């Protein structure tokens, strides 16, 4: 996750509190999704950005996860996201994040 995004998420968490925030991920690979998940929960694993050593513990979900998908207008999902779900390793991303959430 780039440093600018890390800084923005940190500012939002400080301004609004952690309880009213959810991070919606859209990374295209398993590895990048895992890194983003880790960054907004236990801190920046590369120790390069504003979230280095900062455990925000925010709930984070990928846009391909069923509970997120269910909350999106099906027509909008079909128009903007479904092709990416088909074209990327969506199942692997969903499984990887479920695994990280389970610890």
């Amino acid at each position, binding site marked *: 996750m780039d440093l600018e995004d890390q800084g923005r998420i940190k500012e939002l968490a400080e301004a609004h509190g952690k309880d009213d925030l959810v991070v919606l991920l859209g990374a*295209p690979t398993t590895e990048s999704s895992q890194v983003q998940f880790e960054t907004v929960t236990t801190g920046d694993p590369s120790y390069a950005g504003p979230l280095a050593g900062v455990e925000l513990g925010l709930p984070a979900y990928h846009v391909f996860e069923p509970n997120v998908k269910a909350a999106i207008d099906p027509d909008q999902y079909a128009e903007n996201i479904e*092709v*990416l779900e*088909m*074209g990327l390793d969506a199942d692997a991303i969903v499984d990887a994040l479920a695994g990280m959430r389970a610890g």
Partner: protein
Amino acid sequence: MPTNRPVIRGAATALAHTPGMVRYGSKPFREAKAEPEFLAELTRGLWSYDEACRYLPNQVFIGSQAPARLWEVEQPWFDKLADADGGEPPFGHILEERRFLALLACADPFKHVLLRERFWEEMGPVMEAAPLTAPLASRTPALLTDAQMDTELESPNSLPLFTAGEGAPVGVVKTGHSEDEALSASVLLENLCCKVSGTLAVHELLNHVDGLGLGDVDLVLSCSEEAVGDRYQRGGGNMAKAIAEFAGCDLGTGIDIKDFCAAPIPAMVIGASLVESGVFENVVVVGGGSLPKLGMKSLYHLEQGIPVLEDALSAVAVWIGRDDGKSPTVNLQAVGRHPVKAGAALDKQFRELVLEPLRRLEWGVDRLDRVVTEVHNPDITVSAKAGDVAARNYKMMAAMLAMAKEIDKSDIAGFARAKGVCGYAPTQGHIASGFVYVPHALREMAAGDIRNCMLVARASLFLGQMTELTDGMSVLIERNGE
């Protein structure tokens, strides 16, 4: 009766195995600056010339193996070195490092590259004896005695040239201007590597085709990744003209085409358009090798005990001429382009570059036999956690086509094998774009294996930080008479 309809009359490749140059790739150079002991580790991970020649992706690059062979041999390939067949490679040779280093000095009119006298005494006759290098090494380059070399090497602005990254330097590159970063020794070396490898590809082309002599080439278009210039105009050019001169195309001129990794396809389209318009008759599109990309993923490779696979400068040359009634045609009615409004999402890029031109032609996907895009060698990228670039692109392309009802969703998984190519090219993006596949496409069309081939290239313009956009272009090549 010949017409101006543009055709591809030939294509060739050149691969210069330059392990000693890997230390001057952008990533290794930065790493060695921060951690000097890195160089010893890097050197231990380098392959010999023999190993490089026996590496399957390299054999596919020079045409000794068909790309389909890559589907048959399980990845990774670096631990499955084949026997070198010893035969004449169909597209071009793998040049050994010492010859390449000698050519760097021969290609340098300003004598910033100086060779050790003893090295040239050994290499001069070798260069003269080989048909590929003889015409490029007819003049003796600037030479230094051992004592003079020691003095030159003391300058902090000079770069020593090594073979296989070890031993005493066989040459040195001096800075071109003490106050001009655009003419530093490292920039000059990068540009000369491009010039020499590009010129080798042009000569491989001339040696592999009938009907094209040095005096027949009237335009060279370079789609290389370098930036030749000075402090007042970095990237001013003109690599194409420099290659034309060094190659001996005395009656030709040259222009550079820039578009990051996508540049070869716009260059081919422009070249074909100039032939069709009658402005030029024989255009050679050439992409020289990129020194900064050497060892780009070497940290990952060394960490895993994998050889440093990005150890060769790669180049491709394509001859576009007037219709001879048999060579594959460049279909200028089916040029895929990437408008600004298309944005940077991969599926939307492929919609513009692949689907839109097919619909313009009123073709279904079933009529397209081959589509080639970014065939980076997965041995290099998978181990560097960047995935299989070609496989990822084909899956997204297929998903886009399925959403557009052009193929069935059940065909997504098999799309790459049905229409595509397994990756094999060095990670020098402009080469790995569809450009590298042109010689294979010509061979497959001549054999009747395919009727057509769409080459698709994409460019990460955002890397230059002038726009957040990407770019891309595609072009369709068809068997003559289709």
